[in-house]
């Protein structure tokens, strides 16, 4: 109808999600390659995560599409890593069922939401100092040096707080999966 581009039209929004995926793609593949140690698998997982980002963005608003994309990709990689560990140790794969993992083909959108809920809840279990360091570093994007100056801490102390906080969130995330 109109020649003026309108961001609220579905295909303009579809374009912007496609832009985000396209602009993150090489970084995502590099990240997954490091994580899995397998270049071909990294590309497959990036593609699959992109598909899920695009589908999900049409169902509901995604507040943090980039983090969502990387998170879905990470969970796909975790599935693959668990499968690989199982098939390496038993040389079978078909009846793989680890109480810990999302079942292959599990709903990764739900698993992302569950992870976010678990991590949000776990924030309250951190010491106030560790939480400050974590939020400054990971939500507000400050470097460790900036945080050290800001909170008048030694840089090594900042790293230690961050390590402990991340490990605690990681444990909260995997709590259901490992005893």
């Amino acid at each position, binding site marked *: 109808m109109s020649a003026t581009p309108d961001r609220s039209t579905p295909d303009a929004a579809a374009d912007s999600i496609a832009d985000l995926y396209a602009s993150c793609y090489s970084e995502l593949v590099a990240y997954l390659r490091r994580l899995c140690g397998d270049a071909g698998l990294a590309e497959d997982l990036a593609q699959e995560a992109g598909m899920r980002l695009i589908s999900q963005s049409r169902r509901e608003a995604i507040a943090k599409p980039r983090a969502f994309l990387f998170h879905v990709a990470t969970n796909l990689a975790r599935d693959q890593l668990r499968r690989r560990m199982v098939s390496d140790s038993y040389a079978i794969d078909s009846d793989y069922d680890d109480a810990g993992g999302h079942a292959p083909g599990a709903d990764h959108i739900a698993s992302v939401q569950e992870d976010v809920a678990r991590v949000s809840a776990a*924030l309250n279990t951190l010491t106030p100092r560790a939480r400050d360091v974590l939020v400054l570093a990971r939500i507000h994007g400050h470097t460790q040096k900036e945080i050290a100056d800001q909170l008048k801490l030694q840089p090594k102390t900042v790293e230690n707080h961050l390590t402990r906080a991340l490990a605690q969130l990681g444990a909260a995330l995997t709590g259901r999966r490992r005893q």
Partner: protein
Amino acid sequence: MNPTESLLQQAARWHAIASGRNLSVDESASLDHWLAQNPRHRLAYADICAAAFALEQSPAAAAQPVARPAARSAARTFLRWSLAAAPLLVLALVVAGPRVVPTWQNLNSDLYTEIGKPQQRTLSDGSVLQLDTDSAVRVSMRDDRRDIELVRGRLSIAVAKDPARPLHVTSGGVDAMAVGTRFVVDRSDSGTGVGVHEGIVRVAAGKGEPVELSAGQHAFVASGADQASLGRRANLEEGWTGGVLSVEQVPLAEVLAELDRYLPERIILSNDAEAARPITASLPLDDPAAALHVLAQTAQLKLRHIPRVAYIMR
């Protein structure tokens, strides 16, 4: 100390070091070395990464009061994206199911094909097996029966006549049995289709009553179902064995799903109002990228290539 925890701690240490800056070449190499030492290291690192991405999406984390006002406004980003995405209640149509990374399936199969590279093979009994794009089978020849298990994808088989040992093609819970005939079996996440070109094929699903299909008939068994439903779709099933996809008045979504099988790219149709649009075309399957281009033009839709995804929109 619990060894799992200590791995998580090590992984968290790496993640903390990389926080807010790039790793040096040496650091980068030692992280890669640590990851390669043990699959458990990779998994622990992935767990920490997942936690960090979950944190980024956590409204509770964004709402945390911190010692200093944020330099970057997370709230603004949120607003921009919600404005962009809010009016969209339309589902994007992913035209085919997820592709399972098939490495282990290939290792456990007797014959498999890569995307876009169908193959033809004469089996030891003289039957001619055509294996379509991205497919895998296991074959077992015994004195009293012949078995072909379709692990994924699609096959067409011209069965060498041998009444003493019927040939079974199994796919999930579906068993298609023939003595001498030519037929197609197509396995996807949603179910298994069987189409008969010549002769008679008996299709059994789970504990349900078998149905007999004769030439020109097609049956579809949904995953986990005990009953085959008879139907059309022969239109799409003829083409691939000859390398051409000829369709007449077939819905766009079905044609796209067919091309999707041949492309390393995945196809997404952004507007599902277009899904039902009838398409009449003849498309070359040996050049699926060109076929997709022609199809988009025919349907007067825009084709956008983003990494490993073909996005079709108005």
